[in-house]
């Protein structure tokens, strides 16, 4: 087994283990979350932020080609929109009386923003499909 294959096998094993853990465990809510949606959105934004930081570093270093810039920047825009919707939702819920129903408008806006963020990540996937395939 070459070093490259060993490296790929190791990463694939990590992916498999993480997938099993994610499927097996119910998502734990953060201690100070105002709701399950607040908690899971935080997880998504933390993950997206780390992914964007790495992608930006790769673009700046020239590891990712210039053609990837637009896709990365679309992801940045979707992340910023989702972040704003999350903060609005979170602070609105915090201002409500305990036990009050979650605000419908803010909830809908947050879910729509998260959907757009997921689409932006999917576009990164499409970039792989299109880029550099052998004829």
């Amino acid at each position, binding site marked *: 087994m070459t070093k490259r*294959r060993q490296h*790929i096998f190791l*990463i*694939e094993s*990590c*992916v498999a283990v*993480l997938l099993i853990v*994610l499927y097996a465990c119910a998502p*734990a809510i*953060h*201690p100070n*979350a105002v709701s399950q*949606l*607040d*908690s*899971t959105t*935080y*997880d*998504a*934004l*933390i*993950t*997206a*932020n*780390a*992914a*964007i930081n*790495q*992608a930006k570093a*790769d*673009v*700046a270093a*020239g*590891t*990712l*080609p*210039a*053609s*990837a*810039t637009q896709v*990365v920047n679309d992801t*940045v*825009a979707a*992340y910023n929109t989702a*972040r704003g919707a*999350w*903060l609005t939702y979170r602070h609105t819920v915090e201002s409500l009386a305990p036990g009050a129903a979650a605000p419908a408008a803010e909830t809908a806006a947050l*879910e729509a923003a*998260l959907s757009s*963020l*997921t689409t932006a*990540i999917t576009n*990164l*996937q499409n*970039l*792989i499909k299109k*880029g*550099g*395939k*052998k004829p």
Partner: protein
Amino acid sequence: MSVAFIILIMQLASQALAEVEKGNVVGEGAEIAEALIAVYQKAAAAYQAIKGQPIDEALVPLQTPVTPAPK
């Protein structure tokens, strides 16, 4: 939602790995695939770091667009 999002990133990395392994991506495509593997690793590490911790809004900063490296 976040689990689906994280799984999507993992699928993205897995696909990148598979394409590189099969030799289907060369040149620019291979660079993208390998860069996305690094993206996955950072994203997974970030998720693990905050799991079970209190929410800290400062860890979710506003992002700025990126400009390509000068040629």
